């Protein structure tokens, strides 16, 4: 039987506020355990929450970026459960009245088409601490540094139809969040986390199949693998005549499989009720307008502008706007170099390859936009050829002098002096009598070989167009 996959994602994003959602403690990643937990974070008796308004602003910013309804009156609720890294014994979240309501975002599919994915809601809540099971021999250590860090939980509609679509959605979400600068959104560090609700149904069936929720997926790659694995597992179950059980499953990246969590852990009644220690958040139009005014240009708009302003292909534009940093880098390079197409090629190919090779973030690159722009200018003004430019680019990695100095020092400057080029051409003509004869007999394509010889002889420094011209005139 043919099955259709139905996926909805719940994505937790740590908002990058300096302090926690309800306390003044810092939120820096990686600090010594329990150095960022104050008396409220420890849930000492008598302590009370005070809402961090910056988190609200970030949530609203996200809502506006995905065209969502903003809750004019959002309400925090207590979600009750016991766990050692949840000091109050309840998590403050938003149930019925989230700050961000229905919205949507657009993803690009492999065939070049676009698809709109609905976002059901995005609500604010506090993160839990961490339980540390290693190093404590039969005991558990509790680190409350993360407890109370603001999270935005973004819930999608069940609009995704494949693991690839899920990854595209997640990447788009990541891109928007980075553009808005509301989270580091680093999956490996847990500042962006993803749970996937997965079900399958026979093609043509309207009702959804029974879904399972996969937790603990911490990279884009694992999202795809975990979903594919789960879809296959569900197919196997159905084809063996079994039934899918609604349950929570953990993804184990080492074994590339999902497995059921003990039912005890999932059969929780959270007994939500409105948090009496906090007032509802009331948001008016003026506030929304003020936040709207701070919105940066978002990836879709920016890509469209790259196509119209710089004449880039839609594909190139799409690649370049994937991250705000990359798009900024490209735009700076394009403006300073005066050649957007060359800039686009260099950024999306050479620079991207470099980053991939070293697993660098753009900010780690020793070649910043200004230097790359100079390099491109030197191609344009014929100081170097495109090929030599690649050599210069390599040299720029561990040589932080400016581009011109490197070209000069390494003697890579293109030879454009006609006297020098003529003697070079004479030498090649003298060394290759057979090819010269062939050319004179009418086999004009041999000119390519002769130009190549000139370039080789000049170690790539000769200006190929000039060489071509001189060759032709000498051979005619």
């Amino acid at each position, binding site marked *: 039987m043919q099955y259709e996959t139905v996926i909805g994602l719940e994505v937790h994003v740590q908002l990058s506020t300096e302090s926690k959602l309800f306390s003044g403690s810092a939120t820096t990643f990686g600090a010594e355990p329990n150095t960022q937990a104050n008396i409220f974070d420890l849930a*000492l*008796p*008598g302590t009370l929450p005070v809402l961090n308004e910056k988190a609200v602003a970030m949530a609203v910013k996200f809502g506006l970026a995905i065209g969502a309804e903003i809750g004019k009156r959002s309400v925090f609720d207590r979600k009750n459960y016991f766990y*050692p890294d949840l*000091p109050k*014994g309840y998590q403050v979240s938003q149930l019925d009245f989230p700050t961000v309501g229905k919205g949507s975002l657009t993803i690009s599919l492999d065939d070049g088409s676009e698809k709109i994915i609905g976002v059901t809601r995005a609500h604010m809540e506090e993160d839990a601490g961490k339980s540390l099971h290693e190093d404590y021999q039969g005991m558990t250590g509790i680190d409350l540094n993360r407890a109370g860090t603001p999270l935005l939980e973004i819930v999608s509609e069940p609009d995704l139809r494949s693991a690839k679509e899920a990854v595209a959605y997640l990447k788009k979400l990541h891109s928007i969040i980075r553009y808005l600068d509301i989270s580091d959104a680093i999956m490996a560090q847990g500042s962006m986390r993803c749970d996937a609700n997965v079900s399958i149904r026979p093609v043509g069936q309207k009702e959804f199949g029974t879904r399972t929720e996969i937790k603990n997926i911490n990279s884009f790659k694992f999202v795809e693998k975990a979903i594919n694995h789960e879809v296959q597992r569900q197919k196997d179950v159905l084809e063996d005549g079994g039934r899918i059980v609604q349950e929570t499953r953990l993804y184990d990246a080492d074994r590339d499989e999902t497995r059921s969590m003990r039912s005890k852990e999932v059969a929780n009644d959270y*007994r939500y*009720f409105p948090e009496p*220690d906090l*007032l509802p958040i009331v948001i008016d139009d003026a506030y929304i307008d003020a936040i709207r005014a701070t919105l940066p240009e978002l990836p879709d708009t920016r890509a469209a502008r790259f196509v119209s302003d710089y004449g880039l292909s839609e594909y190139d534009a799409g690649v370049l706007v994937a991250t705000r940093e990359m798009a900024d880098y490209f735009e700076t390079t394009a403006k300073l170099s005066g050649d957007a197409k060359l800039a686009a090629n260099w950024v999306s190919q050479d620079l991207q390859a470099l980053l991939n090779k070293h697993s660098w973030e753009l900010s780690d690159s020793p070649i910043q936009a200004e230097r790359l722009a100079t390099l491109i200018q030197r191609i344009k003004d014929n100081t170097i050829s495109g090929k030599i430019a690649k050599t210069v680019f390599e040299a720029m990695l561990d040589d932080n002098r400016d581009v011109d100095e490197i070209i000069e020092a390494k003697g890579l400057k293109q030879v454009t002096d006609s006297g020098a080029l003529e003697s070079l051409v004479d030498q090649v003509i003298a060394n290759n009598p057979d090819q010269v004869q062939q050319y004179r007999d009418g086999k004009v394509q041999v000119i390519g070989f002769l130009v190549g010889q000139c370039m080789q002889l000049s170690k790539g420094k000769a200006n190929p167009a000039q060489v071509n011209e001189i060759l032709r005139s000498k051979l005619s």
Partner: protein
Amino acid sequence: MIEKTVAELSAALAAGETTSVALTQAYLEQIAAHNEALNAFITVCADSAMAQARAADEARAAGSTAPLLGIPIAHKDLFCTAGVKTTSGSKILHNFISPYDATVVERLQAAGAVMLGKTNMDEFAMGSSNESSYYGVARNPWSLDRVPGGSSGGSAAAVAADLCAMATGTDTGGSIRQPAAFCGITGLKPSYGRVSRWGMIAYASSLDQAGPLCKTAEDAAILLNVMAGVDDKDSTSISLPAEDFTATLNDSLKGLRIGLPKQHFTRGLNPAIESAVRLAVAELEKLGAEVKEIDLPNSDLAISAYYVIAPAEASANLSRFDGVRYGYRCENPVDLEDMYKRSRSEGFGEEVKRRIMIGTYALSAGFYDAYYRKAQKIRRLVKEDYARAFEDVDVIIGPTTPSPAFALNSMKDSVTMYLEDIYTIALNLAGLPGMSVPAGFVEGLPIGMQLVAKDYAEAKLLNVAHQFQQVTDWHKQKPSLTASAKTTEA
């Protein structure tokens, strides 16, 4: 000197007739003499109190005129006090020494008050008799075989027996007003949001409110001046224009409109209390007030709604007491679940466990609408009842309790005990300010008259109570402590 009011002590200290050291010494002696019988204090801070007293005398010599400078106070043991054990009347916090001060404590300290110690209370403020305290019941100074009321029973007993000049309490369903009535003193529950809850160990967050227990309405005004005010650390505290609550104490009551809710003068009310309260109202009429009967139609629903909402909030508020970070932890837990279960089973008392169970049940899937949501609807109805009533009257008056202080161990079951709060609970649901002032004696025991005003109209309450105390002397009556002590010996 120890029997004097805060206003009188303040004047005596200013006039140099006494010193804070002498006063503090005198109260500590009174505590030493009577706390064993009364059990009003869980913790007495004799050394730090004397040090604070010396500092207060030095500050006065240096020119300080802080409003409570050098006057000894006792705090209910659910206000966090830095460096001092804070138990909330529970075994589960038997070893909890707070690293910080509650805002109320901080403000009173900044006003110069000297902290004598921490007073006994029903465990986590859940109770109307002080019998649920892990630290033993506090006793009523008027009769040691009677309860002092609760949950602020220790504070009320301490003020009544002159173990302190003034005390703090909290009121979630009557926990300031009822013990004030039982012990013959003056107690004020301010409007919800008037006083910061930061550092006050929560029972039911949407109902809890701190207030003073003291000897007169004037003292209550002086204390409220210090305790009130918005606090950045409590999002539910309210920013209101600064007010001097003593400024209007002497306003005339001519034309004051008093409402007597007919629901508060019906079956279940001790007839002797009814006549005492009616006599008290007659005194106010003599001062120019007009009296009419009013209707609070949803009064009988208030207790049911309260016993859903308060336990629901409490069930979450008390989740933090899990044996993980502080407080009581059971011996040798075999695993996490065992630690949770035994720490909480052994650390909490019966009444607290009962309310956690009720609250957990009321919030459970499938019951939420029937209990919690319905209770919130009733809460709105109760609020609307009062709003309607206050269109026609300025103050609502009735008995604070249906009967005088009852005997220890006399309440057969929890529900009978819950009904003791029948007149006080609705105010907490509505968030309104209320007071209890002494209004007579029944069977030799003091009884209280409850006054209620609109939101944030504490000044009106204090004005009426103060005027009443100018023409009556119920608040000046003192229990005979040695006589009570003999009763128990016999």
